[in-house]
């Protein structure tokens, strides 16, 4: 690592930090711009009770002061305040509870889609324009054009209701199989297409011809030269893939009733649980920003041809 690399990492890191701050600020002020406040929909509130509630949660103070406290609590204690609807629990507690399942779901989906995607993409590239390549391309095109909620509903209808092979409820480990498949299909199709095109690109390079001329076995050419170099574009997709999996999990957890963070988020939207909405948005957004940062840095380190600006 030279000084240019380190400078680049610092620059990107600062931008990421700034982005997280923008997200926190936007989230905070946007949520506070909603007219009425969080307790308007509550049953049986008198103005006195409402005032007491607002005092308890600090909502009676000016917005700028609330913002200062909110920001300070996040930075110093990683505290997003208490949930308004699940009394007695803090936002962080609820989020980390949901995270346990969601991270498992997301990581398995990411791993499955990467492994299968790269394998299918390599096969398609090596058998270019043959039957198997055509089949793979048609299937992946179909998967890329299908929204995840439709895919999830189909899988639910087919495997859980019609064939009764797998449970429809995602709260048990076997119940996670369908949500994982639903989440993994789109990134898998995308990675397949990405690997195929970059592999075709690599296979046309001079060093592959040189290796062939030298008499390197085709197995060594594929695994030693072609596959390794064609994985670089796939690496750049890791960040967007995580973003997709995070937002996709909102839908998938809803369909399969998985007790994860996505369901927490969606139900906090319908409940108007303001601190929950803010907390979940900020934590998920930070996750995505950090993952994008890591991807960017990895990409520049892995491919030395890319210049550091």
């Amino acid at each position, binding site marked *: 690592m030279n000084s240019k690399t380190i400078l680049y990492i610092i620059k990107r890191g600062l931008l990421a930090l700034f982005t997280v701050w923008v997200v926190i600020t936007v989230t905070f002020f946007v949520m506070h711009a909603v007219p009425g406040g969080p307790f308007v929909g509550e049953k049986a509130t008198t103005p006195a009770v409402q005032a007491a509630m607002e005092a308890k949660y600090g909502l009676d103070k000016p917005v700028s002061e609330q913002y200062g406290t909110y920001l300070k609590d996040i930075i110093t204690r990683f505290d997003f305040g208490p949930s308004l609807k699940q009394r007695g629990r803090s936002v962080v507690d609820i989020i980390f509870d949901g995270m346990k399942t969601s991270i498992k779901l997301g990581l398995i989906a990411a791993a499955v889609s990467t492994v299968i995607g790269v394998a299918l993409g390599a096969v398609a590239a090596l058998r270019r324009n043959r039957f198997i390549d055509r089949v793979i391309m048609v299937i992946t*095109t179909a998967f890329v054009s299908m929204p995840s909620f*439709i895919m999830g509903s189909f899988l639910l209808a087919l495997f859980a209701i019609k064939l009764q092979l797998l449970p429809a409820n995602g709260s048990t480990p076997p119940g996670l199989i369908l949500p994982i498949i639903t989440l993994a299909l789109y990134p898998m199709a995308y990675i397949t297409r990405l690997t195929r095109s970059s592999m075709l690109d690599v296979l046309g390079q001079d060093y592959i011809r040189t290796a062939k001329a030298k008499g390197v076995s085709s197995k060594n050419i594929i695994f030693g030269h072609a596959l390794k170099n064609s994985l670089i574009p796939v690496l750049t997709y890791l960040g967007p893939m995580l973003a997709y999996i995070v937002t996709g999990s*909102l839908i998938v957890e809803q369909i399969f009733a998985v007790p994860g963070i996505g369901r927490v988020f969606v139900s906090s*939207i319908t409940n108007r649980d303001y601190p929950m909405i803010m907390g979940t948005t900020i934590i*998920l*957004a930070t996750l995505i920003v950090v993952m994008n940062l890591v991807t960017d840095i990895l990409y520049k380190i892995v491919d030395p041809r890319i210049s550091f600006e």
Partner: protein
Amino acid sequence: MQKKKLFSFHVDLDMFIPATDKEKEYLVQMRPSSTFFKDGIKRLYKNKVAFISLIVIILITLSSIILPVFWPYAYEDQLGVQPGKPVDASFKNLKPFEYGSTEQEAIEAGEKVFPHIFGTDSAGRDYCIRVIYGTRVSLAVGFFASIIVLIIGTLIGSVSGYFGGKVDLFIMRFVDIIYSLPDMLLVILLSTVFKMTLNPILEGTPLERVGGNIISLFIVFALLYWVSMCRLIRGQILSLREQEYVLSAKANGAKGGWIIRKHLIPNCISVVIISAALQIPSAIFTESYLSFLGLGVNAPMPSLGSLASEALNGLSSYPYRLVIPAIVISLIVLSLNLFGDGLRDAFDPKLNN
């Protein structure tokens, strides 16, 4: 022949022999020169997949506009509900080609009743017209969202590319920040907030039927999605300005207007159109995603996403209610994507590989 001296003014007569007929032939125009646009259309016409996709898109669009005019049922009509009479429950949840009680009587009396091709939904509304109307809503959302993105992105991008310098630097840093924001999460957040804020404001205005959610979706698109278009346009303008043919046009005495009309716009427009075309499916995706989370169009107006999400409740008894909007949505997105790819191949041959 005598060797010519280097600095001699002696005229070499060989250079002034009249051209032979064969040489003259080189100057004959074999066919009218084809414009860039005509060339692209010709290439697009040859691309079967893109052409079929275009036909599918046109068919879907036309039928979603024309069919509701002739359809005997309206998308919000609850059949079986008539003022002053008890609700006729026989109209609810009809299977395809089944009829409600009064319609059955009418058929037995020899009248013709327009069939419910896809049955009715749980509120007794004709499902086929809801799908058609939902298609129209989804297409309109995608179209307008991409127009908004196109206008904002082109404007800011060309300003950034044209002026360069500090303006460019400032705009590009701003774009970087918006680009690194997680878009979907902000879309959900902003839609939630706009839904609560806009709906009371819109009450009583003609926009109420459209609903705060769709307007908030447009606002969100206008706020967040213009950045990639802006980057694209800026890059195009920056690189086009430096091209040799622009320099050569300038050297030949072309005026600024000519260069913009003949060189910059034709070379830029294809990229703009292609990315606008590819923006439509992404907007339709986003709309259906938000509808699925309950943040889409206001009931009773249907969109393909809200139809699919309503269908989830009765999935085991009425699976076709999910399948039909799902097929339409996938068909639209697939054909728009394929058509966009075809457009790119046809109008941007440089990218062909």
